[in-house]
């Protein structure tokens, strides 16, 4: 039976309106979309009365009409139908089945489709509308016809389906010939030569190097047998770049050349990760601020720090770039779902308290021809935001922080998703024991998401495999999370981890590393029939976690899952054999030593090269217009700087009722916040702040400065909000174009060195991180690499919420101070981009860590001393942009003079206004508290300058030529808000 539900003619169809607008504005088509509807094909037999009952329960009859088994016909219009591909699980199916079941009727399965009527379009326009607006070829399929469309024929186009009946027979979706084929294949590698080994790796998307294939070959030669496909897949997944971070853990021979091309030194780095990121944390961990506060670093799914005696905070930021490039909606949603599971699987599990999301996209107005299989940046942007919205909001986790950087190198977008959680100290440690049952909680295992771990280790090519893209089901994850947190508090399990990349293989392999494990694959609950053993074992189906449950507690875990409606299955047992044994129907299909699996990966040795830039010659500089009013307005309107309110308001940042500094702030709740803050324990004085720093534009001149600036920016945001360096931990997320190239790896080395130097100088430890080192689009043999990008995310404990300040100017008659030095550092600035300079021109902002630390400490002290009413860091766009933001956020203007700003060498008005020098703040100091403020500045040895007063409704700045900026706040705010107001 099928039911079609559409909006009544008397009600407003907002979906239709949005599509109509997008067709006009984004595709430039005049086509009309007069009607949209949803079609539900439900597999069951019903009387007319029963069908009516279902229809009435499904439709909102006040604003919708439903029809049963009607023909798809409309005079004079094209009809388009769209649905998810059969291997993708539509989250709405469960809801349909639940509703029918609650009515006391039976339903086996349901297929959901969207239907659109389109008028006034030619056939090729219909195709464009289908492909660029209504469906995504990586996850969906469409069918269309003029005046009518034959749905049965459409369904038959799905290769796995031969007839409508087959579609509707429950869980028969994948019943195909392969069921009869040999479920496990043996891969002959013992006698393979190098060429064959390479081919085996490539043909199976294993992403293993020749050296690695040889190590596997040697292992199986010793065992005197060839591996099964499932064994080879297990090793490839465990050894993947995604899981092992091979590049970061490799030995690097690093050559540095000076600006004239002369080699000036060669360094041998034993292990890049350990000698930079880990070394910094080890050094800081000894200091008194962190001795008792650093709870778990690097070893778990998330880093953990102490909040108070009863609570710890876990924090993790992940990347989900490749899937988001193929399907922005599904990719972003599953990205969030994944990082939530990281936090839920840290220690014995933390309860998520906020999300942060940082994206890099191509320019929204991109107008050149797009490479094949690359979506328009605006479509990617919209899809990613919708994915975050629909998954994050449904999970009941407030999305409180983020940033969006636009640059045309990001045709391969970057999607960073972060989650923090709260947990009691006892829950930090986990330890499975031999004899514990291997229990899976959450969704079923399907053919979705195969090869994600190995796929992410390659660049995006045309015709890239799309089995990796999934559509998340937030409610499945919510049920799982609720069940797990209840089981955690009742202490019903001894260990937990998430099923992410690599699925069971990764989760069970990781948990049983020091023990051993035996699994029976047929005990897993499956979405699809006819899955091969390796597919079950490696499937990356979302919304699953693996727990180690002592046998006597299993019943209690079952009861909780039953109550919450979360799936549960027991797939095996942890053993003491130090072997991983995987069985299928009782027969062993994989048997690997844990030691080989986890420690057998041969260490890579890599070569890296870095070429220093020639010193900058200022005379090469282009000069911009001197109409600084206009330049300021244009800077405010640049997409990276402009207000992100359109995206921010689609995220729920209030759920859990603990968000005390929101992403938007000020007199009209619409100015930009530096850090966002939650207070996870009601009534407590302690709070948790989160911020981010990302400055990819400086990297073309100096990857070292770029990384230093990212740390500095994240920390400025924290300190400007009332936090302190001594209570702030950071996370690194490296997204590089392709570190298989020596120079790219060299830039990574420089960035990692900066991370170490700056973190140690500031005393802010890294607690977790992630890297994604293959981010480029390859099209027609041409590479489009991203700007190498380091995201630093900071999490800080604020000991007293009364210390919190926001960026908005609070009062008239306050004094405005600039803290920190302004230098000739226009390289990579937004001003340079605006006047058309290349990314290589100028000096990239540098961090002088020792001086900067004094600036930070001075600002911390003045905020703690309550002298500061508002504080904002100076970042993208420079001083003029920062001061403008403070003024229009507060609805109060300012008059300032540039000659009093702290600086070292002589600087022009242009530099003073727009340089992006690091470690600078603007502080609004309450009238009468100037002396206290200045005393604290002096005591800490920080540079500062009194530049003006708050006043009126205009921003007035005087430079060497008198008044150089004079603009109304409303006009500035409008410029800032207009760009991304869609």
């Amino acid at each position, binding site marked *: 039976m099928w039911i079609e539900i559409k909006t009544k003619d008397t*009600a*407003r169809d*907002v*979906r239709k*309106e*949005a599509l109509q607008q997008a067709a006009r504005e984004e595709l430039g088509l005049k086509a009309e979309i007069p009607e949209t509807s949803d079609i539900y094909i439900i597999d069951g037999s019903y009387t007319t009365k029963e069908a009516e009952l279902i229809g009435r*329960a*499904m439709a*909102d*009859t*006040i*604003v*919708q009409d439903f029809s049963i088994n009607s023909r798809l016909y409309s005079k004079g219009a094209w009809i388009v139908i769209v649905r998810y591909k059969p291997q993708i699980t539509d*989250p*709405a199916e*469960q*809801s*349909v089945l*639940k*509703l029918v079941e*609650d*009515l*006391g009727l039976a339903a086996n399965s349901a297929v959901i489709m969207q239907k659109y009527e389109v008028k006034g379009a030619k056939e090729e326009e219909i195709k464009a509308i289908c492909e660029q607006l209504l469906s995504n070829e990586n996850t969906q399929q469409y069918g269309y016809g003029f005046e009518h469309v034959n749905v049965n024929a459409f369904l038959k186009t799905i290769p796995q389906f031969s007839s409508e009946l087959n579609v509707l027979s429950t869980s028969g979706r994948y019943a195909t010939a392969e069921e009869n084929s040999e479920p496990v294949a043996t891969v002959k590698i013992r006698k393979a030569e190098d060429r064959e080994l390479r081919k085996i790796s490539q043909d199976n998307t294993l992403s293993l190097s020749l050296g690695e294939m040889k190590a596997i070959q040697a292992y199986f030669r010793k065992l005197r047998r060839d591996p099964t496909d499932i064994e080879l897949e297990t090793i490839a997944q465990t050894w993947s770049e995604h899981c092992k971070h091979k590049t970061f853990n490799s030995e690097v021979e690093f050559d540095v050349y000076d600006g004239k091309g002369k080699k000036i030194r060669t360094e041998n780095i034993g292990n890049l990760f350990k000698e930079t990121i880990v070394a910094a944390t080890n050094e800081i961990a000894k200091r008194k601020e962190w001795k008792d506060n650093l709870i778990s670093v690097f070893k778990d799914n998330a880093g953990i720090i102490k909040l108070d005696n009863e609570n710890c905070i876990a924090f993790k930021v992940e990347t989900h770039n490749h899937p988001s490039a193929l399907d922005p909606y599904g990719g972003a949603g599953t990205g969030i779902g994944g990082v939530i599971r990281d936090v839920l699987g840290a220690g014995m599990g933390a309860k998520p308290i906020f999300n942060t999301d940082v994206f890099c996209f191509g320019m929204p107005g991109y107008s050149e021809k797009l490479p094949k299989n690359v979506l328009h940046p605006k479509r990617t942007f919209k899809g990613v935001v919708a994915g975050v*919205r629909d998954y994050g*909001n*449904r*999970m*009941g986790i407030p999305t409180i922080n983020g940033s969006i950087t636009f640059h045309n190198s990001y045709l391969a977008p970057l999607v960073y998703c972060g989650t923090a959680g709260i947990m009691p100290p006892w829950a930090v440690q986990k330890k499975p024991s031999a004899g514990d049952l291997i229990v899976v909680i959450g969704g079923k295992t399907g053919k979705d998401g195969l090869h994600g771990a190995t796929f992410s280790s390659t660049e995006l090519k045309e015709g890239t495999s799309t089995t990796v893209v999934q559509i998340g*089901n*937030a*409610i499945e994850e*919510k*049920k799982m999370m609720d069940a797990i947190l209840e089981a955690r508090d009742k202490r019903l399990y001894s260990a937990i981890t998430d099923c992410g990349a690599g699925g069971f293989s990764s989760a069970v392999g990781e948990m049983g590393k020091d023990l051993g494990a035996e699994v029976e694959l047929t005990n897993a609950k499956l979405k699809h029939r006819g899955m091969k053993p390796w597919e079950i074992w490696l499937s990356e189906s979302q919304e699953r976690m693996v727990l180690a449950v002592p046998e006597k507690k299993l019943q209690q875990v079952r009861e909780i899952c039953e*109550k*919450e*409606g979360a799936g549960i299955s027991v797939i095996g047992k942890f053993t003491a054999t130090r072997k991983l044994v995987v069985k299928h129907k009782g027969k062993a299909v994989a048997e690997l030593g844990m030691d080989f699996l986890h420690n057998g990966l041969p260490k890579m040795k890599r070569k890296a090269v870095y070429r220093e830039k020639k010193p900058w010659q200022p005379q090469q500089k282009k000069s911009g217009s001197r109409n600084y009013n206009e330049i300021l307005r244009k800077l405010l309107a640049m997409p990276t700087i402009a207000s992100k309110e359109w995206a921010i*308001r*689609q*995220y*729920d*940042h*209030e*759920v*859990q*009722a603990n*968000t*005390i*500094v929101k992403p*938007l*702030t*000020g*007199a009209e*709740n619409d100015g930009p916040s530096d850090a966002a803050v939650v*207070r996870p324990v009601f009534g407590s004085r302690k709070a948790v702040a989160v911020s981010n720093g990302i400055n990819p534009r400086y990297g073309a001149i100096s990857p070292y400065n770029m990384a230093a600036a990212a740390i500095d920016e994240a920390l400025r945001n924290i300190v400007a909000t009332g936090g302190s360096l001594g209570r702030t931990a950071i996370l690194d997320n490296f997204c590089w174009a392709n570190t298989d190239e020596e120079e790219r790896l060299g830039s990574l080395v420089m960035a990692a060195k900066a991370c170490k130097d700056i973190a140690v100088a500031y005393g802010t430890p890294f607690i977790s991180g992630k890297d994604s080192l293959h981010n480029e689009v390859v099209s027609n043999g041409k590479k489009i690499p991203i700007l190498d990008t380091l995201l630093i995310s900071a999490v800080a404990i604020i000991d007293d*919420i009364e210390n*919190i*300040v*926001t960026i*908005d100017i*609070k009062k008239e008659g306050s004094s405005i101070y600039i803290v920190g030095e302004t230098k000739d550092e226009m390289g990579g600035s937004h001003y340079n981009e605006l006047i058309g300079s290349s990314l290589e021109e100028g000096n990239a902002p540098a961090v002088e860590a020792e001086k900067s630390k004094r600036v930070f400490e001075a600002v911390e002290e003045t905020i703690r001393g309550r002298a500061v009413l508002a504080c904002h860091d100076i970042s993208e766009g420079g001083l003029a942009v920062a001061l403008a933001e403070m003024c229009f956020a507060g609805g109060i203007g300012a008059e300032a003079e540039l000659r009093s700003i702290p600086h070292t060498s002589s600087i022009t008005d242009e530099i003073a206004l727009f340089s992006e020098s690091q470690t600078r703040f603007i502080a609004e100091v309450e009238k009468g508290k100037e002396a206290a403020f200045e005393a604290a500045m002096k005591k800490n040895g920080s540079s500062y300058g009194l530049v003006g007063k708050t006043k009126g409704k205009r921003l007035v700045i005087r430079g060497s030529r008198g008044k150089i900026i004079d603009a109304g706040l409303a006009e500035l705010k409008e410029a800032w808000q207009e760009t991304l107001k869609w």
Partner: protein
Amino acid sequence: MVKTPKALVLRAAGTNCNNETALAFELAGAAAEQVHINELITGKKRLEDYHILAIPGGFSYGDDLGSGKVLANQLAIKLRQPLQEFIDSGKLVIGICNGFQVIIKMGLLPALSWLYAQEATLTNNDSGKFEDHWIYLKAENDSIFTRGIRQIYLPINHGEGKFVANAEVMQHLQKEKLVKLKYCDEKGNETAEYPKNPNGSLYSIAAITNKQGNVFGMMPHPEKFVTRYTHPRWTRENLPEEGDGLRIFRNMAEHAKKELV
């Protein structure tokens, strides 16, 4: 001895404002217990043991078939009798955000003719998307829930909050004085202007009750504002310690103490 009223905070798959709703009841002097709908259906817990039923915000069953539809259907079928008795006995029911969507779609509100017949709805915001805003509300017509309130400031977080009903139902709502909160501007003037009226609700309706006055639904979230620190401008304005939303929970707890315990 004053007895403490008991509030049942209902959970289902996808409910996500249950913790803060329970906390608000506790702060208001009621004892809150979070109960999963499956516990009511299996009979492990009984509705009749409580004085207040709260259906909190969230995305019950993902809102996949339109907000609140699946839970509305489930409640109307599986708990039909106990719910009817609960309401008939004068006990209190509050639906917030998704909870309001649930009870309006199952016909507990406005229930002008009879229970379980849908007469009004909450549908897609005019903006076509989920939105998070703080908005002003003015109280109209006294009620158990809004007693003592003139104007309050609360957040809305929803994608489907536009109140819609046909002219006849609207007329009844006005005549019977069932509209209790309306979106307004800072000065308390009812407004249709976006985003002060964030979703395009007809007559700026944000909350209504049934004729009996013991079933109440509202789109904004009173449980999100029980302390000054969640006000978006607490760093720039002098505010009382207690947030505007707590009043609604106090009203329920006080009424229950007097009339129901």
